[in-house]
């Protein structure tokens, strides 16, 4: 089975890709520490765009700046554009301050997406670390929406502490399904925690899979992805069956600014979702 990241066509209906479109904040949901989920709807005169799971947008807060954020909502409901954002800099901090009715700028959607089509007929393992669950959530929505098309579905999720488990209620709901295996682990916890403690790669040992017919979608901190890809390969999964979502500095998302280069890869247009064999020789090297 050959899996490839899906390259999405450029939206030619919107001729100037450098110009943000206006979106209104419909809902702000406080998530875990310093993290919120914004549901955006097109402001007057703006048309909604569809997106594929794994794609990202550039979010602009008036006068503050613009940052790349992956879309974490349901691709079947493109009129509600959902992003989960953690405050780590001026723009992501400003995004936390938004209230219902505030208007921000959105450019996109940009980049490649998870191989949802190619994975049909295969087992799919999703491995998420920390906020890496957010870019994988649209993939899970898409997989579950046509559940009969896939073999075994499995979500492995690692967070730092029990308080850092993102989308906890939704995880509990997914865990209640008989057609989806969900395993959660935390790096450290107080004695009150009765769940799994340890790194996310340890969860891989819990699940049997057939390397010939399995595709793995991995998103999280680079160090987590490094260990996960290594473990998956040790379990016999080929690099062409492993997909990772990369993160780099981005100023344009169009392939012009040069900031997001990772070796020969432009993370903005070749990625963010990349088949692992394509970047394997660069992955894990320092300061690439």
């Amino acid at each position, binding site marked *: 089975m050959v899996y490839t990241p899906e390259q999405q066509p450029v939206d030619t209906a919107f001729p100037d890709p450098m110009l943000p479109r206006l979106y209104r904040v419909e809902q702000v949901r406080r998530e875990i520490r310093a993290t919120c989920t914004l549901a955006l709807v097109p402001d007057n005169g703006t048309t909604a765009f569809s997106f594929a799971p794994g794609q990202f947008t550039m979010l602009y807060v*008036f*006068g503050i700046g613009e940052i790349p954020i992956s879309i974490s909502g349901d691709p079947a409901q493109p009129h509600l554009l959902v992003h989960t954002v953690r405050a*780590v800099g001026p723009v992501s901090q400003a995004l936390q301050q938004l209230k219902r009715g505030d208007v921000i700028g959105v450019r996109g959607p940009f980049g490649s997406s998870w191989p949802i089509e190619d994975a049909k007929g295969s087992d799919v393992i999703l491995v998420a670390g920390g906020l890496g669950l957010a870019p994988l959530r649209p993939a899970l929505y898409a997989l579950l929406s046509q559940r009969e098309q896939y073999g075994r579905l499995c979500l492995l999720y690692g967070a730092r502490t029990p308080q850092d488990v993102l989308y906890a209620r939704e995880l509990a709901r997914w865990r209640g399904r008989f057609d989806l295996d969900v395993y959660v682990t935390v790096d450290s916890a107080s004695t009150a925690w009765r769940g799994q403690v340890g790194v996310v790669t340890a969860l891989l040992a819990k699940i049997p899979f057939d390397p010939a017919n399995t595709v793995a979608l991995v998103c999280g901190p680079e160090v987590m992805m490094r260990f996960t890809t290594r473990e998956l390969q040790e379990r016999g999964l080929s690099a062409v069956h492993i997909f990772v979502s990369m993160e780099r500095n981005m100023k344009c998302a169009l392939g012009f600014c040069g900031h997001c280069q990772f070796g020969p890869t432009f993370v903005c247009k070749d990625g963010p979702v990349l088949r692992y064999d394509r970047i394997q020789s660069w992955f894990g090297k320092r300061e690439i």
Partner: protein
Amino acid sequence: MHVIERDALTALFVALRQRAFRLLGPTVRDGAIVYDELASPADLPQGWTDTQDGGTYRLVRRNDAALFGYAVGPHSWKQFLHPPTVRLWQAQRDGQSFHIRAEQPEQARFAFIGVRSCELHAIAIHDRIFLHDAYVDPVYRARRENLFIVAVNCGQAGGTCFCVSMHTGPKVTQGFDLALTELLTGERHYFVVETGTARGAEVLQDIPHRAATAAEEEAAAAVVARTATQMGRTLHTAGLQELLYRNIEHPRWDEVASRCLTCGNCTMVCPTCFCTTVTDTTDLTGAHAERWRQWDSCFTTDFSYIHGGSVRTSARSRYRHWLMHKLATWIDQFGTSGCVGCGRCITWCPVAIDITAEVDAIRTSEHRAAAEGKNDANA
């Protein structure tokens, strides 16, 4: 081929100006030959040449009245096609919302006078990035679309030139409207002219010209042939991409980092370096915002910043990124090398780091290692 006399250059300038072109080309300023507005051929660097070496550039008087008798200066044409700073849009606050006003990029009518073959290749490389990739840069397109190019075949190579190594010169072969070869023989000062486009041929009709004789064509060919033998540097390109990919962790990167000031001069003078950053600003009231795009350099730590820190903090990794991009990853990205062999990065490096020498050092160390391996096997 045609011939125009030295004095007919005035007619060329007039013909281009009549077609509403803004003439840009070489002129002497601040002790260097830079690219700027040209009012007439009198603004050209007549009788000047340059001597160049690692970290060194000097203007020197020629003993003739050549107009294009120099190599290349610190400027490249990218400052006009891909401007150092450009406003992308403005926005005005309106309650909880705001309005964005798009910038209407000016449809420029530039005529570049005196473009060298390496520079034509650099423009072709930018065309690939800004016009023929997934997205089109409207700023670049507005400046590139009407561009008229008067190219010049190089009459002499600079001390840091290596276009022959990169197969990008010195003969102009593509991407021009008119191409000149300057000839000074005894009393005569004339140009052999080649037309590259119908538009170029049409402009030539407005200038006193005649068909070139076989002897004149031969003399012009001899000029570039001689220049090709004068290259100040050589970049050994055989297997270069693989060589660099094999040596991502080579100790030479530490050695060059001990000299590199990470000043970014090389990226500013490079005719192909295209990286930019954006700045979002507001006025004092906070109600008016703008986004500006500026040239950026991969030699800054900010360049690779993501939450928590920069990816490339060491000078080693930043120099490596620049050189690897130029000579190796560029080929994967855009199908050509990112280097056109103009030598500017060598000349304008304040500590004379030489891209050709850095490649040689890595290549030589591999040869040495291979030879030692063979000796060990024999022992």
